């Protein structure tokens, strides 16, 4: 009888005390072959034929089309964004036609220049003042973060394609990148 009772109590206590409390862990991992900081800085400063820039650390260069001066994969919590840098002669078609072209790519109706200019963000970079425009289609869960950087003889277009949720995360890096675009001496 006593053995039976003892067994009951042991069983109850054991079952009720079943829990894991070890919530702190420590381990070591070998370093991956990352470039040294100096090399990394060098790698981040890209020099194509007639344009230089400073790439934000998390961005990874990717293969683009021949039209593109550069392409990057931009990681954010919702996936990977695709950033392209292209250069067109003169005004490259102007603000209205380019913004409406991007809007059409996102299945959005074209809007007037007045409406476009309402939501333009003005910034100043090495190449002078430039404009940033964000275009979002929530239904498609797609967005573009675009910069139009006039230089006089040509216009640089930077377009980042991503999900709307990622805009806030990458916006600062995007602005820093656009502002860093420059012509080498």
């Amino acid at each position, binding site marked *: 009888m006593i053995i*039976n009772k003892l067994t009951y109590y042991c*069983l109850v206590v054991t079952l009720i005390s079943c829990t*894991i409390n070890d919530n702190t*862990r420590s381990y*070591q991992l070998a370093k991956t072959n990352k470039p040294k900081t100096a090399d990394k800085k060098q790698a981040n400063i890209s020099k194509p034929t007639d344009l230089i820039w400073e790439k934000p650390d998390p961005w990874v260069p990717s293969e683009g089309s021949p039209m593109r001066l550069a392409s990057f*994969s931009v990681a954010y919590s919702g996936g990977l964004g695709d950033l392209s840098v292209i250069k067109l002669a003169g005004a490259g078609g102007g603000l209205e036609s380019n913004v409406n072209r991007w809007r059409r790519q996102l299945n959005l109706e074209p809007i007037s220049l007045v409406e476009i200019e309402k939501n333009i963000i003005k910034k100043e970079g090495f190449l002078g003042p430039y404009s940033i425009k964000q275009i979002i289609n929530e239904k498609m869960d797609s967005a573009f973060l675009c910069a139009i950087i006039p230089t006089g003889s040509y216009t640089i277009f930077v377009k980042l394609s991503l999900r709307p949720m990622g805009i806030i*995360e990458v916006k600062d890096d995007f602005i820093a990148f656009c502002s860093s675009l420059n012509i080498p001496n």
Partner: protein
Amino acid sequence: MVIINSATKILKTPKLFVFIIIWMMILVVIGTLAQKDMGLFAVQKKYFSSWYFLIWNIPMPGGRLTMILMLINLSFFFFRKNLWKINKLGIIILHIGGILLFIGGGLTAMFSSEGNVVIDEGSDSNYVEDYHYMELAVINTSDNNFDTFTIFDHPLLKRNKILKHENIEFEIKIINYIENCEPIRRNTPAEVQYRGMMKNFMLNELIPLKEENMNRPGIIFHLSNARPLVDGIYGLFLGQSIPQKISSNDQEYIIVFRKKRTYLPFSIELIDFKKIMYPGTGIAKSYSSDINLIEKGISKRKLISMNEPLRYKGYTFYQSSFIESSNGETTVLAAVKNYGRLFPYISSIIMCVGLLIHLIMKLPGLLNKQKI
């Protein structure tokens, strides 16, 4: 002693089993109704994985307590007098099967883990990222050969918790853990105690979404005992592109707030990701990952497809999803480690055998009764 005796009596009685079954049905109904507003994971945590939950401030037994009571009740069956007789063989086997089922459930609840393994084509990965739980990783990067990780798991990331470890010289006090947040740029300069990202941003608390994996958790903490210019209030959120770097007493640290990682004793290299679409549509018909399973330098080629998971060393890898980008294809594998995986099968067979034996033993008696 009187209380213990009466508690034992209650726990022993077969009536308790009936009440527990009824309560479990009610629990399932409550959980199903609540799932509409709370989402699957929150309901699972509140009603089924908990010891108790409150309804209008009245504590009710949660799924875990209910299961344990049921297991205790079933176990008491074996301490009955005059049990070990041949005519009760079927019932004994049935109870053993039932107990095994509960033990399996307990193992799954305590030790199972599930998450994602995300691998780009041509690269490899050796860790699983948990679906639900977060961790705060303090990584000492001072050594040239290796990084030392000190991980504080999700249960520690609660308001006012102080995080300390022998590997780190400073201490972290959690000011706030936010289930869903949005980083917002400050309009006015931050106060002097704010450091890192918090100098320019603040974490705006949002209402947690029903779909738990759509939330972006964030954490605000106070770091002390490092250096006067390093001590202060920091903030991190999931998916932050630039991690928080700090230096303390000639040691370099990176602090990352990320999904809980479980490292695998092997790594998986994605050789090729294949996708077949339904003709003329953008809907995937099937997709598969051609992988190399690398362990101690030896690699084995395996294929994981939609209905053919890879089982290895207790882990099961299912083809879950994929990501396509200009950079190439990325596979998303669902990884599950479940120590109690086989228990439901084994216990079901045992219970069937028990019922069958019981039926066969009772059959002559039943037939005789019919004849009368």
